[in-house]
């Protein structure tokens, strides 16, 4: 076994041989056939490197072995050497049929999970017949009805693929998808995936388009939905806590991690207060982060986050179940680092960001298109983004070794330093009375705004060089820039007509009754809102109709705007 | 677009007819202090005194803007039109400002019976802007039933609001730390109504109690200052607040020349005299003033005497400089 000399870990007889042995056992049990890995020079590459001679146990306490506390080095014994991350490209455009065509191609090109991005009007909770036609279908797919969802998922085996729904509270897309599955005779117990936009607190703070219901209303729906899914769709992750919005809105990486963990604490406390068992519900918590181009900082952010979460769930919630201590996360390369100028440079940037995410130990990833600053990705740029992941996965030998940066003097010390920063942010939020209160008062919004302005000043002053923007500028030919064609207005009109037809074909008595039941559920604390929502979808209710009822009863989502 | 200017009635006529665009433009003219201001103000004078002017003051974050929003809703529900002048602080260094009060009043944007104008303090101390009194007059002339002044609320003495408003509302919120303290420091004296906003927060009852205890120490006057609890978000207590405002306005309107309108006029006069004097003293080439300056410098005369001399000189000649 190779050894890494580390100043913090003096030499002597190894005290964590036992822990190593345990990991090795787990590793072999899980990995199946372990093909020997050699580098281009023929050197055999071990799955993990560690200081086998640390006498005071500091290694085990701070880093440990993959899959064992504190999970700094990874949440599974095998990590990417066993199973690589899922490639979850976010896609959505135009009509459901356009999405379906596109997603099939993406799946064929290597993506292993699918993600649906709906149109902006869907995020706002409005049906397409109430939106100005110019802005329909420009950023995502129009999904207003169960029929729309059925078309989106045509020929796609819902039960064989992991599905990510960009579906904010009150989770109408999930309700529609479950009804589609039901009609296709698919057992809900086989449906796997994530509501990756369930984090209404992050919407209130940083992603206003998704913010549909008032904070209190969204909180209620969230808890009802989680309880319902735990019972009926047990392999669905009801909680994805999103640090990406806050980092993209301007939070530093440490702030974003701290705020996300504070949000997770808030949700966990809410679930606990509802009588749910942390040992169970924490198993289904997943996270969603931004990966900036600040390479080592991002790696350290993820390693520190993993360690903090692992300890925090036992300290605050008394959790012992190892599965509930795993810090599972999806990550997306940051669009904020990408430039409109010299757009092909973005391929290099995305590659670096993606590497930081992989070496940081992510479970799932989206890579941005090089045309990020021009429009939602063209087919060409989406292909390059997927290929980038394939290249990193299969050509670059990044997955041979678990946590390959572990043990680097720099990365370990940076991980410690980031941990301190992140814990400081969590302490600040605790002092504000928790995340819920800290966002209601605008504390978090102000913190993020100040960081955003500070960063912008660094770019403006040239202190932070951005190639093509404030340095190495070139005259560019505007007509050479890629730009996604907008959906045709004719198609959009057809979509609106289609909705009108679907609406007219419903049984009005059945529909009204279901909407009335939904209203009743919202009013009464004892009736599960999400169950009523599924019934409403079964009765043909549209997105807009469902959201309207819930807005009436639970409050319209008005963000706290802080200038 | 066709040319409207040809038959368009004059600004004054349109203002008196209550046209939004005319009121907005008139406020800009007053704010920019252009040459036509004096004539405009003179012309509207006969049309003033109909509205009731309500001042909202209190520390930042107490919920003034949110409460004004709810108050507008309540008054609209009673069939009254409302104009609001909301003042935010200008940066003392750059002079710039972000005027965010109306973010909280967004639901009234499209209501023709509501007019909202954001004003920057532009270095003026006292919680309002230098032009606030005249802005209130313009709103009055435009026929609004209720005029709301929201002050900066950064702990200034806010006496101006006291002079200009028929009804002075002082707002605090539980848990803002030392705001009860700040209220002690003088602002209590001007309040007609004390509001503890955010009544949904845990310490609200205690704050109400503290304020009531403080009021009990004051000599009884002809108006008993009520302490009201409100929740500006769900609008609890707004009906009581509006009732109290109407009640107070009715009692104050009967009191004669030193009412709020008189106060506004007096404040306008004081400001204008000061500004006129400042301009002349700084810009005139005048031997008398030069002499007074050098006398002052050499401590030949006191400041009191100097003021008298300069004022007499200014009265003698208007055309100098």
């Amino acid at each position, binding site marked *: 076994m190779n050894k890494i000399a580390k100043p913090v870990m003096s030499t002597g007889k190894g005290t964590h041989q036992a822990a190593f042995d345990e990991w090795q056992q787990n590793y072999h049990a899980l990995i199946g056939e372990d093909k020997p890995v050699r580098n281009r020079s023929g050197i055999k590459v071990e799955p993990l490197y560690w200081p086998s001679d640390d006498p005071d146990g500091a290694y085990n306490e701070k880093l440990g072995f993959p899959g064992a506390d504190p999970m700094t080095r990874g949440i599974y014994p095998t990590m990417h050497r066993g199973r690589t991350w899922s490639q979850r490209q976010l896609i959505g455009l135009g009509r459901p049929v356009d999405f379906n065509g596109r997603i099939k191609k993406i799946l064929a090109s290597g993506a292993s999970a699918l993600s649906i991005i709906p149109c*902006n009007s869907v995020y706002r909770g409005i049906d397409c017949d109430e939106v100005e036609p110019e802005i329909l279908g420009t950023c995502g797919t129009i999904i207003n009805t169960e029929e729309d969802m059925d078309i989106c998922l045509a020929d796609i085996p819902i039960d064989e693929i992991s599905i990510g729904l960009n579906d904010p509270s009150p989770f109408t897309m999930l309700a529609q998808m479950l009804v589609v599955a039901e009609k296709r005779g698919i057992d809900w117990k086989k449906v796997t995936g994530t509501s990756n936009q369930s984090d209404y607190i992050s919407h209130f703070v940083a992603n206003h388009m998704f913010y549909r219901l008032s904070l209190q209303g969204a909180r209620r729906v969230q808890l009802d939905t989680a309880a319902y899914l735990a019972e009926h769709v047990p392999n669905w992750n009801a909680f994805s806590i999103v640090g990406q919005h806050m980092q993209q809105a301007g939070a530093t990486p440490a702030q974003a991690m701290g705020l996300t963990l504070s949000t997770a604490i808030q949700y966990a406390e809410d679930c606990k207060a509802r009588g749910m068992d942390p040992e169970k519900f924490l198993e289904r918590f997943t996270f969603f982060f931004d990966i900036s181009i600040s390479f080592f900082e991002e790696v350290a952010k993820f390693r520190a986050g993993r360690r903090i979460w692992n300890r925090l769930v036992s300290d605050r919630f008394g959790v012992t179940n190892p599965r509930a201590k795993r810090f599972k996360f999806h990550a997306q390369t940051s669009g904020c680092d990408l430039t409109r100028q010299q757009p092909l440079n973005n391929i290099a940037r995305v590659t670096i960001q993606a590497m930081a995410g992989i070496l940081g130990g992510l479970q799932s990833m989206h890579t941005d298109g090089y045309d990020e600053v021009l429009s939602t990705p063209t087919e060409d740029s989406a292909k390059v983004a997927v290929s980038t992941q394939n290249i990193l996965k299969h050509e670059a030998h990044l997955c041979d070794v678990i946590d390959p940066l572990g043990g680097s003097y720099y990365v370990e010390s940076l991980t410690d330093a980031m941990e301190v920063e992140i814990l400081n942010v969590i302490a600040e939020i605790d002092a504000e009375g928790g995340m819920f209160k800290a966002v209601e008062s605008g504390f978090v919004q102000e913190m993020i705004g100040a960081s955003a302005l500070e960063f912008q*000043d660094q770019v403006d002053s040239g202190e932070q060089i951005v190639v093509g923007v404030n340095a190495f500028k070139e005259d560019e030919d505007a007509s050479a820039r890629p730009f996604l064609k907008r959906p045709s207005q004719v198609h959009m009109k057809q979509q609106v007509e289609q909705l009108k037809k679907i609406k007219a074909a419903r049984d009005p008595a059945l529909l009204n009754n279901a909407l009335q039941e939904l209203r009743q559920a919202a009013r009464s604390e004892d009736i599960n809102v999400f169950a009523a929502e599924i019934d409403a979808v079964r009765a043909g209710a549209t997105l807009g109709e469902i959201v309207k009822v819930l807005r009436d009863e639970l409050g319209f989502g008005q963000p706290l705007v802080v200038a | *677009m066709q040319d409207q200017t040809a038959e368009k009635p004059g600004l004054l006529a349109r203002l008196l007819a209550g046209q939004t665009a005319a009121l907005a433009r008139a406020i800009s003219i007053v704010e920019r202090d252009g040459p036509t201001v004096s004539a405009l103000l003179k012309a509207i004078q006969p049309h003033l005194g109909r509205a009731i002017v309500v001042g909202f003051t209190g520390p930042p974050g107490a919920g003034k803007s949110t409460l004004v929003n709810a108050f507008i809703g309540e008054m609209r529900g009673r069939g009254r039109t409302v104009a609001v002048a909301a003042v935010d602080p200008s940066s003392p260094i750059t002079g710039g400002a972000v005027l965010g009060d109306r973010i909280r009043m967004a639901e009234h944007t*499209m209501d023709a019976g509501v007019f909202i104008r954001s004003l*920057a303090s532009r270095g003026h101390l006292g919680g309002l802007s230098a032009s606030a009194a005249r802005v209130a007059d313009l709103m009055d002339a435009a026929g609004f039933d209720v005029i709301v002044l929201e002050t900066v609320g950064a702990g200034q003495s806010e006496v101006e609001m006291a002079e200009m408003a028929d009804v002075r509302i002082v707002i605090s919120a539980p848990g803002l730390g030392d705001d009860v303290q700040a209220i002690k420091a003088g602002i209590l004296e001007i309040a007609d109504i004390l509001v503890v906003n955010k009544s949904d927060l845990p310490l609200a009852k205690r704050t109400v109690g503290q304020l009531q205890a403080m009021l009990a120490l004051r000599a009884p006057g002809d108006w008993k200052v009520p302490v009201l609890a409100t929740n500006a978000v769900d609008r609890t207590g707004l009906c009581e607040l509006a009732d109290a405002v109407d009640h107070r306005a009715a009692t104050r309107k009967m009191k004669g020349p030193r009412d709020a309108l008189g106060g506004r006029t007096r404040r306008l006069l004081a400001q204008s005299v000061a500004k006129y004097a400042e301009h002349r003293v700084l810009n005139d080439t005048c031997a008398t003033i030069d002499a007074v300056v050098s006398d002052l410098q050499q401590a030949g005369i006191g400041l009191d005497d100097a003021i008298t001399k300069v004022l007499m000189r200014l009265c003698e000649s208007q055309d100098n400089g």
Partner: protein
Amino acid sequence: MNDVLLAPARVLVTKIGLDGHDRGSRIIAAYLRDAGMEVIYTNPWQAIDAVVALALEEDVDVIGISSLATDHLLVPKLMVALDAAGLGHVRVVVGGIVPDEDEANLLAAGVSKVFHPGAVREDIVTEVERLAIAASNERPLD
């Protein structure tokens, strides 16, 4: 004609349509404030009529629309509505994600300037100030 402003420029910084990105608009509000302007800042999702009502009541010199999620496609409607309300002198600038092709359409509809990602503080402030002076000079006196 003045080539300086007699009072601070008044600028409405707002968002129309469905978009909610506000990192850029908050930065712009701070830029303009720091340059001595008075910024009226709003909630997102303003209807075109609401922008006109705001511009009218606040008697602004410049309207700045920040648009990242294609809502700039509604700006031509705003230009028509402003004209109809007698606010033809008010200058409109748009910033955010605006494809080149759309930029040409916006300029043709009367937008004064489009700012793209990478625009720097100094250029933004200088241009808005210049436009405020122009608007102020054209503002009808009554």
